[in-house]
């Protein structure tokens, strides 16, 4: 950590409403681990178990109680699926609208809701059917459909974590990430240096961030110690989103692999990143906060 240059700013006090605190809870911030990916083990496991028991009834038609066991596994699957949905919605609501993973997340959610409906029908059919030694054809078909939906959806959920980094490191941060990217166009294209006002920067709270794109340059604007800093959005290790990072003193920490950078200079203060960030000049002109974009910053 590079705190020697100037005294470390005091950690701000975050005022959070009851709803915000409930959402923080659902996102697993007090636990230090997102809750949705924890709970999904159960519906996935129980639905698969139920399906395997169904198949077993065909292989061993004389074994008793398999149909009933399959029913119980499915019931527990449905209960835990509904438990997992709630924190899932909270996680979904915090994905930036133009995030590359947003569409995957929407598909993931839709498929899961479909699977829940399929299993609810399946359970209702099994509940009313006479207990027999072999599972009936239509409920079995529904189980096959349910497991298929679950596999695709689970795969997409995994891609959200391991490819898109959704939920990774989010619990380290107090404030929600930016909801959108702010796209701005410089007023005089091609000029040597242009001042681009960023209106939303005026309202930034301490340690809050904006994700801004000006003329193809994607940057994070953050308020630290009552000053606004701007630096490239992408970490120089595996390109994690710094606008979703954690602020500690004058450092921003990447949510993915914890690389730290000094927001004032862009210098790496902690690995695994080795390359410094590109920084942008923030100025106040006519009481408007904005970015001074110059030729050099573009060609750096």
């Amino acid at each position, binding site marked *: 950590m590079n705190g020697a240059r100037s005294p470390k700013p005091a950690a701000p006090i975050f005022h959070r409403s009851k709803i915000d605190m409930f959402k923080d809870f659902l996102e697993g911030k007090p636990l230090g681990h997102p809750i949705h990916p924890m709970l999904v083990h159960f519906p996935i496991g129980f639905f698969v178990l139920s399906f395997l028991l169904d198949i077993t009834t065909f292989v061993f038609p004389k074994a008793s109680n398999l149909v*009933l066991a399959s029913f119980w596994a499915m019931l527990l699957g449905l209960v835990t699926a509904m438990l997992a949905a709630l924190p899932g919605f909270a996680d979904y609501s915090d994905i930036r609208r133009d995030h590359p993973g947003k569409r995957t997340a929407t598909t993931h959610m839709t498929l899961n809701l479909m699977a829940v409906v399929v299993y609810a029908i399946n359970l209702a059919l099994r509940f009313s059917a006479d207990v027999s030694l072999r599972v009936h054809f239509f409920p079995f078909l529904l189980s096959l459909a349910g497991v298929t939906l679950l596999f695709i959806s689970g*795969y997409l959920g*995994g891609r959200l*974590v391991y490819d898109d980094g959704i939920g990774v*490191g*989010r619990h380290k941060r107090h404030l929600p990430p930016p909801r959108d990217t702010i796209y701005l166009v410089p007023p005089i294209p091609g000029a040597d240096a242009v001042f681009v006002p960023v209106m939303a920067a005026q309202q930034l709270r301490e340690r809050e961030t904006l994700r801004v794109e000006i003329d193809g340059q994607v940057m994070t604007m953050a308020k630290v110690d009552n000053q606004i800093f701007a630096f490239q*959005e992408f970490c*120089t290790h*595996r390109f994690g989103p710094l606008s979703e990072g954690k602020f500690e003193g004058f450092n921003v920490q990447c949510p993915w692999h914890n690389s730290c950078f000094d927001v004032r200079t862009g210098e790496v203060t902690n690995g695994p990143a080795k*390359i410094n960030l590109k920084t942008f000049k923030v100025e106040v002109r006519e009481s408007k906060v904005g970015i001074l974009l110059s030729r050099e910053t573009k060609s750096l």
Partner: protein
Amino acid sequence: MKWLLDILKGKWLGHPLHPIIVHLPMAMWPGALIFDLLSKWQIGGNAMVRLSFYAISFGLVASLLAVPTGVVDWTGIKKEKPAWKIGLYHMILNLLVALLFAINLGLRMQTFREATEVAGAPLVLSVIGTGLLIGSAYLGGRMTYHYGISVARMSKDEWREIAEAGGANLPPE
């Protein structure tokens, strides 16, 4: 040998394999505890006792696949990283949990076909095993969600393109 490592790392799937497979023991063993408790409360009768038995067996079979995929992911972590030590504890705990559930299953072998409620010793083993498993799974989750193990490992080229298009400073390829 490298082809085997690549299969175990899930390169063919574009998704690490260990976190997929662990859903099964992670659901089966705490599930067995729930089924045990239900049978103790006279719900479900022999179907519940059997269900618990099948859940433990299925979890054990799945854990046979979870071990090699997990070890491969773990060997990819540098020893000086905090995640390496967490991974080590995660592994030791998991082996212990698997052993406890194997013993647990052995104790049920004779009785599960007829019994209508779980016996004392297997129930205790289910409680201990589930408790340890939850602790160990939390550590596994920390490796992903706190230390970013396997995150952006397979997608780093796509992210690089996005960062490059966004005018970022980039590390050498």
